[in-house]
């Protein structure tokens, strides 16, 4: 099992690196899809089947498709050199700071004393247990989320529609 994890983790990392460093945004998007699939695989290993499915359907299936739509729509060819450069040291500082964040988090996690793990309940992570939890304990966030989605729909439509003069 652990070896499977390492394979999937490796895929996720490599595709992540490629997302960041590919020139064409289209390629970045495609590598991100690979990343999502790898992470979904890791979810399966973690007894989170429903979430894995949702990850593939929503994230990889819907969100990335949306990205691809927009990339195609904007019809970007080769990346052009922009007229202005960001502030000096931005890139260098960015990398340094991100690395520092990582180290800090690792340090923080290593210092934390975690309670021991427990026994596995049989139906953990399947649809039924998710649904049960969703509609009882997390009913309010569920309802609020529906409103959030409504707002997002309206917002997206308003922002993106063409001006009809």
């Amino acid at each position, binding site marked *: 099992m652990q070896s499977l994890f390492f394979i999937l983790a490796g895929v996720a990392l490599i595709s992540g690196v490629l997302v960041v460093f590919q020139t064409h945004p289209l390629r970045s998007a495609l590598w991100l899809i690979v990343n999502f699939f790898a992470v979904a695989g890791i979810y399966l290993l973690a007894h989170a089947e429903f979430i894995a499915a949702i990850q593939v359907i929503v994230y990889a299936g819907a969100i990335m498709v949306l990205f691809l739509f927009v990339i195609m729509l904007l019809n970007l060819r080769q990346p052009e050199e922009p007229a202005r450069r*960001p502030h000096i040291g*931005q890139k260098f500082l*960015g990398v340094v*700071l991100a690395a520092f*964040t990582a180290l*800090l*988090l690792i*340090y923080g996690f290593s*210092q934390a004393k975690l309670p021991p793990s427990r026994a596995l309940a049989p139906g953990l992570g399947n649809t039924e247990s998710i649904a049960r939890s969703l509609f009882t304990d997390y009913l309010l966030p569920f309802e609020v989320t529906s409103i959030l989605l409504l707002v997002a729909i309206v917002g997206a439509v308003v922002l993106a529609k063409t001006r009809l003069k």
Partner: protein
Amino acid sequence: MFDYVWLIPCFPLVGFLINGFLGKRLPKNLVGIIGSAAIGLSFLLSVSIFLQYLKLPAGARPLEKVVYTWMSAGTFQAQVAFLIDPLSLVMLLVVSGVSFIIHVYSAGYMYDDPGYPRYFAYLNLFVFFMLILVGANNFLLMFVGWEGVGLCSYLLIGFWYEKQSASDAGKKAFVVNRIGDFGFLLGIFLIFWTFGSVNFREVFALAAKYPVGSGVITAMTLLLFVGATGKSAQLPLYTWLPDAMEGPTPVSALIHAATMVTAGVYMVARCSALYALAPFSLTVVAAVGVLTAIFSATIGMAQFDIKRVLAYSTVSQLGYMFLACGVGAFISGIFHLMTHAFFKALLFLGAGSVSHGLHGELDMRKMGDLKKHMPITYWTFLIATLAIAGIFPFAGFFSKDEILFHSLVDGNVIFWGLATAAAFITAFYMFRAVFMTFHGESRVDPHVHPHESPPVMTVPLMILAGLSVVGGLVGIPIIKGLHYFHDFLAPAITPVGHEAHYPAAFEVALMVFSMAVAAGGIYLAYRMYLKLPELPTVLAERWPTAYDLIYHKYYVDELYDAAVVEPIKQGSDFLWLGVDDKVVDGAVNGSASLVAWLSAHLRKLETGFVQNYALAVLLGVVLITGYLIGR
């Protein structure tokens, strides 16, 4: 009747308000009538209170009448209240009476002046403050009056404010007075600090418990005297009085002869209880007084402006009053104050009448032989001059003679010698003035036709002349039963030392001697200005430096200018350019430019690039997380 004592200053206050606010819309005659009537009513009320007071049994006097409590803080109380005792009654009568006469005179003298209502308003305001000053029962209220008369003096000296010299003189008077007032105020503070009260009766009662020569009382009295020096124009704060002659002549008569300048003498007499305990201060008072007397008398010898002569004579006579107080003869000082009020007011009004008749001329070199043109003015002026010279039986004789007597027996022979010399010089220069103005050949400008003044001006002259004749008779010494004045005032004054008795013959001999001295002065003036008119010029050429010194008033004004005024001006220039400009403005402008500099550099953070902002966000996250992990 005593309950109405507060009305005495109120009448002139009402007069001030009416003339001040409505004066321009009222007919001119009405303005003059309101102004004079206000004082007239005060005078009548003072007289009736005086008569009632005489009927009071001895135990009931003196009285205090409280109008209202001005401030009350803990155990300290300051009230608006009047003290009715012999001293304040004498002052009230003199002030209101002489003021009334001068108001009537002014109605005629100032008739053609465009500022007529303003003049009467200020004059009434002045009398209001003066009456407060002399009627107050505590130091604080007296100081209110003190400052108020200073203010009115400034307003009236600078009455013709468009004239640069007049407004300068007003400022000079006020500033020099202020220096004295500072001393006065320090004295009041010291009194309050020591005794816990500013009420006269309380303070004097408490002071009686102190030993003679006590340091704190000496300090108090010296500080109070500084105030008196300023207000009553003694050395070294006398320089404002001659310049104050820029004001209208009745103003000089009222303020700078009869009333305001006497406030210092009144104050010293009022505090006789304190001065009796401070022999050192008394010596200082007497010394300053006699030195001032002779100093300004010498200056008066060489002046040609008739009002200046009278101004220096006022300073000199005030010196006499202080000399009297300084040797312990407070009552004599007040007596001389009263008689001086009569004849000095008369002298000034007479000078005003002369200048009125000559259309504004004041230089005696352009006068002469006015006797036949202005007889009433001449005779009244002559009576006043005889009074000031101290000739029997005019008013000045009795009061001045008493001062000379006391300066010898209660003081020392030096005081007496200087005072007698000053008397000689006084007689000399006053008669010089008379001879140059009214006798001899006429040096009047041919275009000017001198004429006598209207009755509204001459009648007051005659009244004052009458007072100058009989005014001294209330205080005849030696003959028991005739020194009413002294008996009346005695309860209000604390005696210094002990009463000594001298043989009557000694007093009479002294009287004769002083008369002889005065007569000598008159004769010298006669010789120099009537018989041999070229003599003064010859003498001036014989001793040019001496003449120059006295003609230029010993250059005191120039000395003050260089020693005091210039350094202060330079000091304030430094404060202006060095401190205000550089430090204060620098600090304010500096903080503004600091903020500007800061913002110029800080705004570079706003690059407009989202990624820079994202970097900042990440930095913040790192810091917070780091802090939380590190805890």
